[in-house]
């Protein structure tokens, strides 16, 4: 295990090299460009052998990735923010064609306004399409999630594309020390990519033809996709066990719980912001307040069972939303509405409060999180939320 000081993008590029990817399609957009640069340097220096294609736009980039995957190649691609939105057509089709593409998303504010700061809407807006979604917290986790993504996506029972979402700047552009795995460990963890229905002239198949528009076939295909997501839940747990055994780093597969025993107030959070939330939880626990933090690592398939187990006994639940969903029910963000639905129907479900924080890449400090916990503790005492939605740090 070699210890190196790298940014998140260099870590992901090394994961791609270790996974021995066959085809890389690229198109620059900050903050994902670093991955593209590092992979280009590696391929040019001969560190590994891959077909490196620069597309003319993100749409072509994801189209090429999908076709290469269906022809039997292990593929890596990536994008960010509005570039990912440009590729919406191939993104939809990659999932329903069951092409196990692994894409890295440098989470970036969706234009307009143009901004490189972190927001999760670019990933979460496409949550319904059938992509497996992982949210990383730091560079080490980004590397590990990329390896997990290949293992889970290419499994024959799953065959769904996977998205590894990393916060712009906080993960992609900050140099941190990480443990670089050895290639023998990765070979033990990742079996080769073997796809049953390949694009092969010797055994011709037609993938995704036009089907009958009176509902002859499409309905059954949708049911198959749901089954694939159910299988993905099992495979993610199995792969996490294997990962812990081979690499020595044990991650909880779906949610990471922190100080939730007997917690009156629990904050649910995604991404790098959770580090400051945990520091706030530590400071409040030291003063005797009972607070906890739950970080969602795998967003699709959604960890409803795990969240129900943790949250049903909490006094109040707060969800930190670094995204937007205009006109949504109760004015909540995307994650808040998903969490609320997961808790619906439980007779003593806690009040759920939504906190918008960090949009546009604005820093969310430890003091902000302490303020959020105080609001939740009040809600836990009075057994009801005073407001459904709070905007933290807004200039009024």
């Amino acid at each position, binding site marked *: 295990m070699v210890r190196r000081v790298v940014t998140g993008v260099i870590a992901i590029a090394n994961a791609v090299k270790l996974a021995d990817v066959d085809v890389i399609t690229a198109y620059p957009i900050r903050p994902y460009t670093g991955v593209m640069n590092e992979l280009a340097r590696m391929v040019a220096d001969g560190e590994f052998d891959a077909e490196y294609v620069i597309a003319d736009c993100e749409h072509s980039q994801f189209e090429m990735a999908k076709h290469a995957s269906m022809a039997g190649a292990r593929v890596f691609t990536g994008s960010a923010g509005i570039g990912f939105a440009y590729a919406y057509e191939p993104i939809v089709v990659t999932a329903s064609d069951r092409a196990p593409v692994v894409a890295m998303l440098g989470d970036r504010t969706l234009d*307009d*306004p143009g901004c490189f700061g972190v927001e999760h809407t670019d990933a979460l807006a496409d949550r319904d399409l059938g992509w497996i979604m992982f949210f990383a917290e730091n560079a080490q986790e980004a590397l590990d999630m990329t390896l997990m993504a290949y293992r889970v996506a290419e499994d024959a029972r799953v065959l769904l594309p996977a998205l590894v979402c990393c916060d712009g700047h906080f993960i992609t552009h900050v140099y941190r020390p990480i443990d670089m795995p050895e290639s023998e460990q990765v070979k033990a963890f990742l079996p080769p990519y073997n796809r049953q229905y390949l694009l092969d002239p010797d055994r011709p198949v037609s993938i995704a033809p036009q089907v009958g528009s009176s509902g002859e076939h499409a309905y059954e295909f949708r049911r198959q996709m749901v089954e694939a997501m159910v299988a993905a839940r099992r495979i993610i747990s199995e792969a996490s066990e294997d990962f812990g055994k081979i690499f020595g780093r044990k991650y909880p597969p779906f949610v990471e719980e922190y100080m939730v025993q007997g917690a009156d107030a629990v904050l649910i959070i995604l991404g790098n912001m959770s580090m400051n939330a945990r520091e706030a939880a530590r400071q409040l626990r030291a003063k005797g307040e009972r607070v906890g933090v739950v970080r969602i690592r795998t967003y699709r398939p959604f960890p409803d069972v795990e969240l129900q187990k943790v949250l049903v006994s909490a006094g109040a639940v707060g969800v930190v939303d670094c995204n937007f969903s205009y006109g949504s029910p109760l004015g909540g963000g995307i994650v808040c509405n998903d969490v609320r639905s997961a808790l619906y129907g439980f007779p003593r479900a806690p009040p759920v409060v939504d906190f918008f924080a960090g949009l546009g890449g604005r820093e969310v400090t430890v003091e902000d999180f302490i303020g959020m916990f105080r609001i939740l503790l009040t809600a836990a005492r009075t057994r009801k939320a005073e407001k459904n939605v709070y905007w933290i740090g*807004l*200039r*009024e």
Partner: protein
Amino acid sequence: MSYGLKKPLASWKEMPPGVVVPAVPPGGKNAWYKTGNWRIQRPVVDKKKCTKCRICWLYCPDSAIQYELLEADLEYCKGCGICSRECPAKAITMVSEMKFRPGE
């Protein structure tokens, strides 16, 4: 019509909707972003050699050389040296910034 914005970090109620910000008219100056500190060297005009041909004003990529005064506006001049290169009378020399104290 100018959309007067009082300060760049305004509250959400004061900001014009649709991500609108006031633009700088042609030949105008951007009051909210001054690029003078990009300079490592500054143009010094020798008024005795200057023939007032205005070629420096024409070539300046930042509109920093003013038409009437024929001197660089030091709040915006980036010190690229194009005016010095183009002057046919060789009246402009580029001098290192470290020779001028703040305020000169």
